[in-house]
């Protein structure tokens, strides 16, 4: 971003699609409209979990990540659909295309949300938001919530305030009475682990955080502490970056252990289930990674992160686990471990990614590629959703449980 625009007042929109997968399903099959609908892993199996659900289902108490059997008990007429990621990607593309009709300054954050910088547009940001929301609904059939604010962080917080189909304006001067009473964990970018840590310093609300001293926060939590403090005060200078490619993003999972552990077998088991969820999320986002990173936190809260750039793209649990475990063994002090995490980063979307074939196993790849080509040719001829590979039609279930 150029120097001039720093410090100048900006208008940022955060567009967040409302229960995206469920909304897409009811566009494709209008009979689902207005019904309690959930998207879940394998519905034939009891252990399937809810990936997302419609607002009608939410009203009955159904929540994301809830096991299917529990959701069914709360809402017996719940309609279950399996996720269909190629379909969601198609809709996601259409949605971002529409956003880009207003400005090129669109930064996709995930399949169903993105930031727009509308500072330089002639129309008033509220009118833009209203028009955009209406068109997304009328032309594509999808509901969304939009936050309008002077920066990305506040826009993100704002879009979360009114769902579905809300438009919320959050001004910097309103931060202290709107954001400050909220719990810190409601702040975008603060997870359970960080909230726990903040508790040590008697920080419970966003206001508590905002009223800390900037320097103290830096001492306690480094650059991240400063970033949190700034955000709590409504400050966020990060630009909307349309070039922000997948490579800057990452997918990571970490878990605080029920008890501190130092035996290899248990730790390996934890890595294995972390790798499973990273694989699953990479699959859902249809990306492959180039770097593997691990986090180890010890009993004394000392935290170590180590990463490795692999010389090939990857998405398989087996590779994630193998590399993470090798990194762990190399850097682990053998002290009891409190938290472990795996992150896949330098992500590329599968459609733009390549896999370097191996001299010793290329014959196996040759077969896969033939199938890929066939699918691609048919898709070109008969449309994206005419055919897809079996493995893409059904989400992978964790296979180590």
């Amino acid at each position, binding site marked *: 971003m150029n120097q001039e625009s720093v410090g100048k007042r900006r208008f940022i929109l955060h567009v967040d699609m409302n229960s995206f997968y469920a909304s897409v399903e009811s566009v494709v099959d209008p009979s689902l409209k207005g019904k309690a609908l959930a998207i879940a892993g394998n519905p034939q199996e009891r252990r399937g979990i809810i990936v997302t659900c419609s607002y009608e289902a939410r009203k009955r108490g159904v929540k994301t990540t809830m096991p299917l059997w529990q959701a069914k008990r709360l809402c017996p007429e719940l309609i279950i659909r399996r996720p269909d990621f190629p379909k969601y990607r198609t809709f996601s593309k259409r949605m971002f295309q529409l956003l880009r009709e207003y400005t090129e300054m669109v930064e996709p954050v995930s399949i169903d949300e993105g930031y727009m910088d509308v500072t330089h547009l002639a129309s008033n940001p509220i009118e833009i938001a209203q028009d955009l929301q209406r068109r997304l609904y009328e032309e594509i059939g999808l509901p969304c919530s939009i936050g309008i604010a002077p920066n990305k962080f506040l826009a993100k917080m704002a879009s979360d305030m009114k769902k579905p189909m809300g438009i919320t304006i959050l001004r910097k001067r309103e931060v202290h009475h709107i954001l400050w009473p909220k719990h810190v964990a409601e702040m975008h970018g603060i997870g359970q682990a960080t909230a726990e840590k903040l508790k040590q310093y008697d920080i419970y609300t966003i206001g508590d955080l905002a009223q800390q001293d900037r320097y103290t926060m830096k001492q306690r939590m480094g650059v991240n502490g400063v970033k949190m403090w700034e955000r709590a005060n409504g400050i966020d200078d990060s630009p909307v970056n349309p070039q922000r490619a997948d490579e800057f993003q990452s997918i990571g999972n970490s878990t605080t252990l029920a008890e501190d552990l130092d035996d290899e077998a248990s730790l390996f088991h934890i890595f294995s289930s972390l790798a499973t969820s990273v694989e699953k999320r990479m699959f859902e986002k249809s990306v492959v990674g180039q770097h593997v990173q691990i986090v180890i936190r010890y009993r004394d809260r000392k935290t170590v992160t180590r990463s490795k750039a692999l010389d*090939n793209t990857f998405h398989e649990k087996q590779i994630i686990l193998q590399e993470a475990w090798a990194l762990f063994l190399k850097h682990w002090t053998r002290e009891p471990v409190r938290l472990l995490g795996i992150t896949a980063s330098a992500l590329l979307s599968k459609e*733009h990614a390549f896999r370097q074939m191996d001299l*010793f196993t290329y014959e196996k790849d040759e077969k896969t590629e033939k199938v890929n080509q066939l699918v691609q040719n048919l898709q070109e001829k008969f449309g994206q959703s005419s055919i897809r590979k079996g493995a893409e039609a059904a989400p992978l279930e964790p296979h180590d449980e």
Partner: protein
Amino acid sequence: MKFQINRSHLLEGVQDVMKAVSSRTTIPILTGIKMEVHSEGMVLTGSDNDISIERHIPIEEAGNVNIEVAQPGKIVLSARYFSDIVRKLPGETVEIEVGERFETTLRSGASEFNLIGLDPEEYPRLPQVEEKEVLMIQGDLLRQMIRQTVFAVSTTETRPILTGVNMKLEEGVLTFVSTDSHRLAKRIASIDNSTEGLAFQNVVIPGKSLNELSKIVEESSELVHIVVTNNQVLFKTKNTLFFSRLLDGNYPDTSKLVPSESKTTLVLSTKEFLQAIDRASLLAKEGKNNVVKLATIDETNIQISSNSPEVGKVFENVTTQSMQGEELKISFNAKYMIDALKAMDCSDIEIWFTGAMRPFLIRPTEGETVTQLIVPVRTY
């Protein structure tokens, strides 16, 4: 111990043995350089356990006196400090004196350093290698063979054996092969000067060792003696002994991986092709994929292209000297192609393709001393 030595000779020697010294060693004494002075000259030794280098500086050379020995002896000095000091000392000569407790004085011009030395008896002995069976090769040829293969070794420890170069000697033909399983580089050379009947297959020298070795071997026709033992290899030049540990394990059989026939054959100017790939990879690198696409157009043209969604696209036509066989579209990592082309050392190359999903072969139009193999990429 007390002696005086020509500073530039000492510096040259120290810089050579420094190539074996690692700051990350787990054995403290190996952070030092061992220095021994006797009536014939000086011996400097550096080692990191994987590589050991011994460098001789003769008392006299071509009528010039290098060293004046007052009292023979030996010492181990911190490699880091010693090399920096020798580099910056003001005089043409350096006087070195070691006391009973290994305290060492270095005098040069008006400058005097006192360094705390280490007990030379604690320095590990270098491997003893008997020179029964010797392979001899010209220094410049050895350097070229290293340069043409070592870049293709694996840099990951997934398959440790692939981090080395496989050196083979069969019927007077010396072969260097390396592969990281994505590409393969092979160089052969006829050797006349070796012990009768000498042959070996499974000798795998760490790539790092060969990189260091090529910095020490001179670009000249002077012969380097190579001696292979069970777990060590020794490269011997006039004044230097270079020992390297060998990698354990069996190097995979790579002979079957090289295609013996071609479905599409291109003949190209190495330089023009290299420059086109280099240009196409300007954008490819940005996309992190570094993948470029090659497509045949007609008998005298191919197209090189690359597409990075966030950056842009590039297309370039390259004139071929000939194109024979089937049409072809193939994608590969530009870096592997650039590395391979830079190692060809010839003006024209031939590329043999056997399909878009199979490794392809690059070799000079004349002679078969260099073979490069690259495995293409596939989409997801």
